[in-house]
């Protein structure tokens, strides 16, 4: 675990011109890379939301995206499984590689991308169906051939929800508490047997105990899955993640990657002044 903000980092020179990647953002983990944004820019209509983001996400690790509200964390996350395709007027430059394959290439089906790269949303959003159906849906639509009952149980157990719901799988997913709903959404994502799980502030609607449960779960899942998590909670990023990326929007450049480093390093020796300001709570 990292201790936050104890040592003062060395002062650093002013940031470079916007279009070029920040020096502190050039870091690339020396591990197998699962997912990689390459010079990625995104516009919502005329409004730019990401600027030349290059970010390599290592396999079987937890990578955290932090940054002030509106800096483009969710936008970047949604680029990783092509969820932005569903928003009219979105334009993308650059690309995203998944184990070296360009997921925005013409011959790649976004449906296949999303099966491999699952997502858990900020607000728990179970389907208004039974708990069982919620978990089984992803497997069903993707033509799962095994025993569905077993799969549902396995996923609910993994998501640490089984004991609370095993007696009433027919109950509506909406009848669960917020924390249970979020774990249901995680179980639902697991049922697809994804490779990567993207989580957008998965704990923002939860109490501290449910939050700890989900954090434990993330650590556990990281043994088999690659996890990318967006969070506003510095302690959470420090607790669960192996690597942390800091994004920032300023007047000139929306959504740029300022710094990327192993979590411990980023929180103890941030290289960029703005990273330091942010993690010390000086703005954002």
């Amino acid at each position: 675990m990292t201790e936050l903000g104890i040592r003062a980092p060395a002062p650093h020179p002013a940031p470079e011109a916007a279009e070029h990647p920040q020096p502190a953002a050039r870091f690339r983990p020396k591990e197998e890379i699962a997912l990689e944004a390459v010079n990625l820019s995104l516009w919502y209509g005329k409004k730019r939301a990401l600027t030349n983001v290059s970010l390599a996400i290592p396999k079987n690790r937890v990578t955290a995206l932090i940054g002030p509200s509106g800096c483009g964390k969710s936008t970047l996350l949604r680029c990783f499984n092509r969820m932005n395709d569903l928003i009219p007027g979105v334009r993308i430059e650059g690309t995203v590689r998944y184990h070296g394959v360009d997921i925005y290439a013409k011959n790649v089906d976004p449906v296949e991308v999303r099966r491999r790269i699952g997502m858990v949303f900020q607000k728990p959003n179970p389907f208004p169906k039974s708990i069982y159906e919620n978990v089984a849906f992803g497997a069903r639509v993707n033509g799962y051939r095994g025993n569905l009952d077993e799969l549902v149980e396995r996923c609910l157990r993994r998501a640490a929800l089984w004991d609370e719901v095993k007696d009433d799988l027919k109950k509506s997913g909406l009848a669960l508490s917020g924390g249970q709903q979020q774990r249901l959404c995680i179980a639902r994502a697991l049922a697809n047997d994804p490779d990567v799980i993207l989580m957008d502030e998965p704990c923002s609607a939860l109490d501290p105990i449910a939050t700890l449960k989900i954090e434990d779960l993330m650590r556990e899942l990281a043994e088999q899955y690659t996890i990318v998590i967006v969070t506003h909670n510095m302690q959470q990023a420090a607790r669960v993640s192996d690597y942390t990326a800091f994004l920032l929007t300023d007047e000139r450049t929306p959504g740029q990657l300022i710094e990327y480093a192993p979590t411990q390093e980023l929180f103890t020796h941030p290289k960029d002044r703005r990273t330091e300001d942010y993690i010390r709570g000086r703005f954002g």
Partner: protein
Amino acid sequence: MAAGLGRLERTQAYRPRLGIRRAYNAVATGIGLVAIAIGLAMLAWLLIETGLKAVGWLDWQFITSFDSRFPERAGAKAAIYGTAWVMAFTLLFSLPIGVMAAIYLEEYAPEGWLKGFIQINIANLASVPSIIYGLLGLQVFVRWMELGRSVLAGALTLALLVLPIIVVATQEALRSVPPSIRDASYALGATRWQTIRHHLLPYALPGILTGNILAASRAIGESAPLITIGALTYVPFTPQGPLDRFTVLPIQIFNWTSRAQADFQHVAAAGIVVLLGILLLMNSGAILIRELMRRRY
């Protein structure tokens, strides 16, 4: 201020004026109550007036006999069958086409001027007078397609008439599905159609059915377009197939009210009660399906 909580000195920047706000609230409630009372009173008056007139005339004989020149022997059998045939075929055509068109517009069609153009014109079509549809039906279905003055020609004409209503209502229903459900489904690797089939349609179904109730209620009361395509007023038989000639209840009722003998006013009243009964039956059927689906989803 007669506040029971005592005076709060700090809050001078606020003027709660509770008395006046309460008065406005009471006025708004009152206006609402009066409005609904007027509506209900008119409805009750109509129903009672018609019901009373129909008493003694609405009997088994009325339902099982054909029309006649004699009020005591006149019945609505042909019109009831005709209405049932026409409505069944109208919904058979308009429902799938309308719902599919709405799905396409909401879920598949790319945003752009073409979609906007289609959208505006659907709204326009909903307000075209029904007689125009009758003229269109006469030319296209009766003459070009040579369907004659048949159930099928009538049903196709009415289907055109209610199509915009169904499309708009279905679109509204689809739009009411929370975006988070769409997101969840797509994020699990569902295709567009799987998302529509498993989440959007079940969720939107109550709204879609309500739209179809409205559409069916509109169609069942129409007479102008059917008269235009040549529905009969005096039919001593029931349609045996979609290509047979027919009449429907509104036409039959209109015909009775315009006859000389005073007793035919009672026959007409009986016909109106039957029409309302069928309407009520259809609506309850749709509501029943809706509730069953809601429980399952």
